Every structure is written in structure tokens, then in C-alpha cells.
């Protein structure tokens, strides 16, 4: 890869020599490490409501972030103007974090060995607009056709192509084109004169438009959203209190994201504020649990060829047979904790400082038959679909909210129940996992993770799991 072949070379005249000059300026006040993150982001979105395409938007964002690290200190500045004067000014501003004679020189830049996980013949952003608009029209039609009780459909499609160029004073140079596409369908249904209920489905990934025409079609998402809304029409209040919870495969993997994932992000452990700090080697989950974070799965929403610091992504084992094995690192935490970088340094945009973040976080399959798992529960709840979740990493308390669940009575699924939040404590919750299914599934590609005001796309996955004890926050006794 040569800088002149990237959009930053072609459109803005950027060269390797420029990069070295900017990094030199960034290190001029004595910083130990510096990096540049150039971003050129093109987005588009189309949304339909009441069977009308009400809005269509496209946008372009360009900018560069300059970071300087000195010990545990970080200086950061950015510019949305890629002229040399503005970039040098940003570098000088970021450099102020350090106050010592300049010691470090910029290593010769050389391309890092990155993955090739989403080399698309045609990124979705380059497909014809009419083809993309047709997706939301099809979703609307399918949702309304599913059941006459459906009375509102909102469908949207959004895609983006983010081109990034990362150059670091340790010599790392990486360019990546990161496509991302996603469909969402929200449906309201009601009985005649009854109260409405909502259903939601969506998905996507780092995929071409073809994905929505051949693999996961608008009809697929629309019918699932409509089905959920219809199911909710018969739902009874969720139970309250501690009980056995069985999670279905796929998106319920948000359990892992909240219960253990965030607590293992190394910045929290570097600061000693995570419930998981200094617990490597300890048993924190049942022996049936092996949890990994893997940024290298082709075409997945949470995958990256290189992270936002120019480090190739990895597959990192977080928990192995119940024992805590590793943390997720960015360059700062791996330097401070003297650990190997894991390719988890991510940022929302050029305006943001990288942080250790998850990619695709999931539990490996076990041996149990999912149907057998439900049959083994005399009384409990089976949760299939979730909304969001959140964690307080210091106390370890986490929540995730089920939007489609069923009562389990004498080993059989009976009534659907209304939405309820489940709550647990990270270092304890996974100890109660007594069965792990053979049906690992990754989510459809809808995850957005927020941390310190920064949002990044992520994935989760899980096989069916049975948790003997968890608190369910319903209202029924």
C-alpha cells in the first residue's frame, strides 16, 4: 500500500513524507508515541414511514485526529481541514501534553499485515439509490401483508463507507476501506380497539447490497418484526424475582457484552476500577463457558482488518472453561500493563481518542440440545430477543432488557410475557450457567456499543444457555 494510492493521496495530495513530518511535529515536545488517524466517511440513509419514503440523506465527513502519548497522558487534537497548516497546528496542540526535550524519532513507516475480511466488489454506498430505496418499500409491503393487525411500519436502510489511514510513530501504517450496511424494521400491531404493541428486527454487516437481496431480505426482517408485535398482543406481565432463565441463541449474547466484556476492557483494569481487575486466572464462570472476542470474522459488523490504532484485530480468549484469561487492549493499556496489543483500540471518529473496545464477543457452543434444555426447567422464563443493556463495571452490576420472552412451565413454553429487564452481577452471573447449547449463533448485525460518549458497531453471539438463577424485573408475583 502506498499513500498516493489512497483517497487521502489522490484527493488531498498526502504523502509518506507528510505523515512523517506531522508525526515529528507531534513528538516535538517530548511525547513517547504519536499517531494520525485520517478519516473520509460517506454515509447514506433512506427511511420509510406510513408507506411513504419520507427522507433520504447523504453526507460526507473528512478529518484527521492527532494523538500524542506521554506515559499515561494523552494529548489530542483534530482538524476537519486537511491542509498541512491545519494538521501541523493540530499536531502542535496535541504535543503540549508532553513537556520534555524531544527524545523519540519517528520509525520508518511500513504497512502493517492487515486482514482482508470485507473486500467487496461493490461497496453498498456505490449501489444505485433506487435499488436501496426498494428495500424499505419491500419491507413495508411484507410487514403489512404478514397480518391485518399490523397498522404502522417504519423501515430504514443506512450504509456507510469509512476510509481510514493510520500512521503511528512506532512505524505502523495502515489503510482500510470499511463498508457497513444495516436495515431496520419497526412494526406496530393492535387488535381492533386494543392497545398497540411493537416489534423490531434488523440486521446487516460489512456487506454488499446483494446481501439484502439474496441472504437476509427485507421480507425476512419485516416478517420477524411483525411476528414479534403480534406475539406481544397476547403477552402477560413478566414475573418478578429470582428464577431460572434460558436465553435463546444469537442476540441474547448481549449478556456477555455487559456481564463480562466491558469489565475486561483493559483501561478499566489499568485504573483498577473494574470488578474484574487483577482476577486473571480466577474462576469467574461455570466450566461450561468459554468466551472470546474475535474481530477477524469475515463480513461481520464488529470486524475490522485493523483497529483504529493500526493494529490487526485478533481472536482473544477472555474466559476459558470458566477461568478468566485475558483483557482487551489498546496501545496505551498494553504499554502500561506490559501486555501484547489485542487489536481492540477503537474510536467513533477522527474527533475521538481510541479506547479498548469489543469487536464480536461470543460464547463457544456446548453440547446440550436446546429443546432438552427447555424441557429441564420446571418454572422459568425463555428470552429470545433483547433491546439494549448496560453495566456498572465497578460494582459489576449489569442489566439487559428482554423484548420477546415466554414463560416456561413444566418444561414447556406457555405464554409470551411483556418486556422486562434482567439484572445480575458480572463476576457471579456466569457461575450459574448449568447448560450450554450446541447451537451457537451470532446476532443479525445490529449492535451499537456506547462508552464514554463514543459509539462503535459491535457484534455478539451465544448458544442457548440455561442460567439457574437470575433476577427478572417484571411486575407479576
Amino acid at each position, binding site marked *: 500500500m502506498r499513500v498516493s494510492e489512497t483517497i487521502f493521496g489522490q484527493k488531498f495530495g498526502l504523502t509518506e513524507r507528510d505523515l512523517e513530518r506531522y508525526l515529528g511535529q507531534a513528538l516535538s515536545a517530548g511525547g513517547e508515541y504519536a499517531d494520525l488517524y485520517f478519516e473520509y466517511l460517506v454515509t447514506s440513509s433512506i427511511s420509510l414511514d406510513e408507506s*411513504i419514503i419520507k427522507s433520504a440523506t447523504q453526507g*460526507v465527513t*473528512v478529518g484527521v485526529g492527532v494523538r500524542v502519548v506521554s506515559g*499515561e497522558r494523552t*494529548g489530542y487534537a483534530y482538524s476537519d481541514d486537511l491542509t498541512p497548516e491545519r494538521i501541523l497546528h493540530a499536531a502542535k496542540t496535541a504535543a503540549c501534553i508532553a513537556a520534555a526535550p524531544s527524545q523519540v524519532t519517528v520509525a520508518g513507516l511500513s504497512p502493517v499485515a492487515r486482514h482482508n475480511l470485507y473486500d467487496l466488489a461493490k461497496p453498498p454506498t456505490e449501489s444505485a439509490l433506487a435499488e436501496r430505496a426498494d428495500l424499505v418499500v419491500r419491507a413495508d409491503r411484507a410487514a403489512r401483508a404478514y397480518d391485518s393487525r399490523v397498522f404502522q411500519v417504519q423501515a430504514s436502510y443506512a450504509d456507510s463507507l469509512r476510509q481510514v489511514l493510520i500512521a503511528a510513530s512506532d512505524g505502523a501504517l495502515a489503510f482500510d476501506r470499511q463498508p457497513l450496511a444495516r436495515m431496520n424494521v419497526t412494526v406496530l400491531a393492535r387488535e381492533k380497539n386494543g392497545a398497540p404493541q411493537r416489534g423490531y428486527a434488523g440486521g446487516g454487516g460489512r456487506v454488499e447490497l446483494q446481501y439484502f437481496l439474496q441472504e437476509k431480505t427485507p421480507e425476512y426482517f419485516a416478517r420477524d418484526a411483525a411476528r414479534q408485535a403480534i406475539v406481544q398482543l397476547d403477552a402477560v406481565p413478566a414475573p418478578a424475582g429470582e428464577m431460572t432463565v434460558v436465553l435463546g441463541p444469537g442476540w441474547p449474547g448481549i449478556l456477555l457484552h455487559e456481564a463480562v466484556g466491558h469489565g475486561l476492557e483493559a483501561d478499566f483494569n489499568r485504573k483498577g476500577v473494574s470488578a474484574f481487575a487483577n482476577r486473571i486466572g480466577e474462576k469467574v464462570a461455570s466450566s461450561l463457558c468459554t468466551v472470546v472476542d474475535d474481530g477477524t470474522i469475515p463480513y461481520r459488523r464488529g470486524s475490522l482488518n485493523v483497529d483504529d490504532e493500526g493494529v490487526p484485530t485478533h481472536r482473544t480468549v477472555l474466559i476459558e472453561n470458566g477461568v478468566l484469561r485475558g483483557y482487551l487492549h489498546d496501545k496505551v493499556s498494553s504499554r502500561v500493563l506490559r501486555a501484547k496489543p489485542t487489536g481492540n483500540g477503537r474510536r467513533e471518529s477522527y474527533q475521538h481518542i481510541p479506547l479498548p473496545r469489543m469487536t464480536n464477543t461470543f460464547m463457544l457452543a456446548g453440547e446440550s440440545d436446546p429443546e432438552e434444555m427447555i424441557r429441564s426447567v420446571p418454572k422459568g422464563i425463555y428470552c429470545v430477543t433483547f433491546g439494549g443493556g448496560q453495566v456498572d463495571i465497578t460494582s459489576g452490576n449489569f442489566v439487559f432488557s428482554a423484548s420477546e420472552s415466554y414463560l416456561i412451565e413444566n418444561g414447556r413454553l406457555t405464554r409470551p410475557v411483556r418486556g422486562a429487564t434482567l439484572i445480575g*452481577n458480572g463476576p457471579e452471573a456466569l457461575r450459574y450457567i448449568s447448560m450450554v447449547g450446541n447451537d451457537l449463533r451470532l446476532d443479525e448485525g445490529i449492535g451499537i456499543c456506547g462508552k464514554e460518549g463514543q459509539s462503535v458497531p459491535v457484534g455478539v453471539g451465544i448458544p442457548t444457555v440455561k442460567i439457574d438463577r437470575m433476577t427478572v424485573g417484571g411486575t407479576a408475583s
Partner: protein
Amino acid sequence: MNYQELAERIVKLALDEGATDAECTISEGSEFSASVRMQELENLKEAGSRAAGLRVLMGKRSGSAYTSDLSEEGIRQMVASAVELARMTTEDPYAGLPAPEELGALDGDLALYHEDLEKLDTPLKIEQARAAEKAALEFDPRITASEGGSFDSYVGARYFANSLGFCGGYRSSSCSLSVVPVAREDGSMQRDYWFSASRSFAGLEPAAEVGRRAAERTLRRLGARKAPTQRVPVVFDSRTARTLVEHLFEAVSGDSIYRKASFLADQLGRRIASEHLTLVDDGTIPGLFGTAPFDDEGVPSRRTVVIERGVLQSYLLNTYTARKLGLKTTGNASRGLTGNPHVGHGNLYAEPGQKTPEEILAQVKNGFYVTELLGFGVNIVTGDYSRGAAGMWIENGELAYPVHEVTIAGNLAEMLLNLEAVGSDLEFRGSTASPTLLIGEMTVSGH
């Protein structure tokens, strides 16, 4: 660059390209952020940016685009892109700009911009963060760590022009000081936070005060345990009560109402809450975070009584949702830079009552005082409410012991009717605010 003129010029360019109407927003600003952890400077960030957004109407079709590239080429592309997109959307009979007579801006100084923030030296701002964290760390030996103290500030401006001849702009400033202490006792850890926010540096609470309150809140949580599952009265402190105001906003927003995606749809003029609740949206109060001279489609901000003594009096509307419902805009249009306007709020708050928080707690024999909420388990369509919570158990009117890892659940429609008391402690720390609230009964789920 004169951004107001640029906004007008972009509108004209759009009309030249065949748009029948157009509206352009430009925002520019610079941010500063300093964080200190265990008294050492950790992050320092300083930068500025600007971007423009355009929405065009081609008859009853609309298209939008935005760009951070304000070069001639960048702007030309944005205009072309918005026009192209408008051609592929569907005609919407309700689409369009506000009626010309609705447009306008509030006169007078709304105190949105304070110069004192631009004159502060960086070392002084870092010192604020350090002093706040220091006060927390020194408050008690059980405060053993910290996620840091931060000082953040923003100074910016927003400009808006449309093809009906509206053109306006305003500058604003804001800053905040926050601390997140971590306390440890008997092997278990807890964290909490406190912050102060203001449009001027002079308006911030003293750093030592912010640190002290953060420490007190954190220490209070040590030794927290689960509570048994039961139905009890629940008191929301002002920080968590504010989230109920935010849920109410979603429920009365025109976007939810015309889709019937709210438990408050079709309830105008009806009693939907106890008489203790009066909910007001006021975008005209000088110096507050939800104040602006005009909304994001050029309609002046105003004061709207949403709920008066329990009766739903008004929805919050922009031009589009007002037309859909056969009503008039309430000056609540909101958007980022581009796209069709959504509904936003000004300063949305529950009017304070007579009782102090202590007096409200005193009337609870056995109940839960919520000081933190976790998660997103709120369904505005049905009103179903179920969230993670932490706080203190109330025994005979007094705070007895800390509680965590529980959920509180109910239905917003019932919770509103069950609202038994509103405190006197209204304070604005953002564009929504609420005094302490007492809900007669909710389900606490624990062990």
C-alpha cells in the same frame, strides 16, 4: 468565514438547482476537555470543527445532505446530492416549511454565550478537574481510586436560513465539571459521580463541592445488598426523576403521537397523572441549556404547559407533526444538521411542589429511594417500565441501608396516576429537570 451568509447562499444555490424550497443549517464550534486521574493529568483534548446540512423540497418530496467539506466543491456536491435524493423520495402531502407567519426569533439576550469560558487558560481548567478530584479523594480513606475528574467546555454557534427568507444565528457556550470516585470496603467496590454544568465558568459549583458530593454519593453505596422482591413506594431522587421527564417527553412528542406509538396518544384533555404533576416546556428561560431564540426550523421558542395538574394540555410539535395532527407547531423542531426535523424540547421540567426531599422520605414507612438507574427497559408504546436500580432502602421515613442489583418495574401510565408527591428541589443541570418524585407503588425485584 461568515456562516450566516454562507447558509443563505447555500439556500439560493439549492433553489437555482431546481428546489422549490430549502433550509440550511451550519454549526461550528470548538471543544476542550481535560481529565485528571489520581491527581495526574491524563487526557487533554482541544479542537474545532464545522459542518453544513441542507434539506431541499421538490414540491412535496424532500431530500437532505450534509458535509464537513465547506469548499466550493464540497458545497456544490452537497446541493447536488440533496436534489438528487429528493427526486427519489415519495410525495408527502404534509411535507413543507413552516407557514411564513410562524417564523421568527426571540428578542433580547438569552444569556446563551458567556465570554469567560474563552478567556480561561488551559492550566486553570486542568486545575478545576484536579481540585474536584482531590476533594473527593481526601474526603474519606475508603475512596481508594477514581475514574477521574474532568473539565469540559464547548463554545460554538449555529446558523439557520430557509427559502422563506428566515435567517438567524446564535452563539452558545457551556462547561461542566465532574468527578467519578471509586470506594472500596471489605473487598467490594462502588462508584458514583457528581457534576456541575453551566453556560458560564462563573456559574459552576465550586470544585471542592463537586468532589465532596461525588464522594458522599459513592460512600453511601458501600455495602449495598439486594432487597427482597416486593411492591413498595418508590422515591426517585432529582437525578433519576429527570429520566421520567425524558420518558414523558418521548410520550408527548408529536412523532410518537401521530404514529400512535405512545401510551399518551389520543389523551389530550384527559387526566393522565395525579394532580401533583405539572409539566412545562420552556425554551425561553435565559441561560439554561434548553433555551434558544428559535427552533431548528426557524420558529420562535416558547413556553408550553404540557401537563397541568395531571391533565394533558398539549403535545410537543414541530410543523410536520402539527400538520399531521391538525394542530399548530409549538416551536419544538429539532435536528442535527440535516434531514427532516424531529421533535425536541426546550427546558422540560416538572414544577416543584412544597415538600423538601426529607419530608417526602419521612412519609414512606417501607420503600426504595432510587439514586441510579441502569439500562433501557422502557417501552413508550405500552408504557411498560422495567429498569435496573440502585439506591437506599427507606425504613420508617429514614434512609436505612444501600441497595443494588434490583429492578424497579411498573407501567408509566399507572406510575403517573400514582404520583403521590413532588419535591421542592428543582435544579437545572441540563435541558430536562425534575424535583424528587414519590410513586405510590412499584415492583422491586431482587431475591
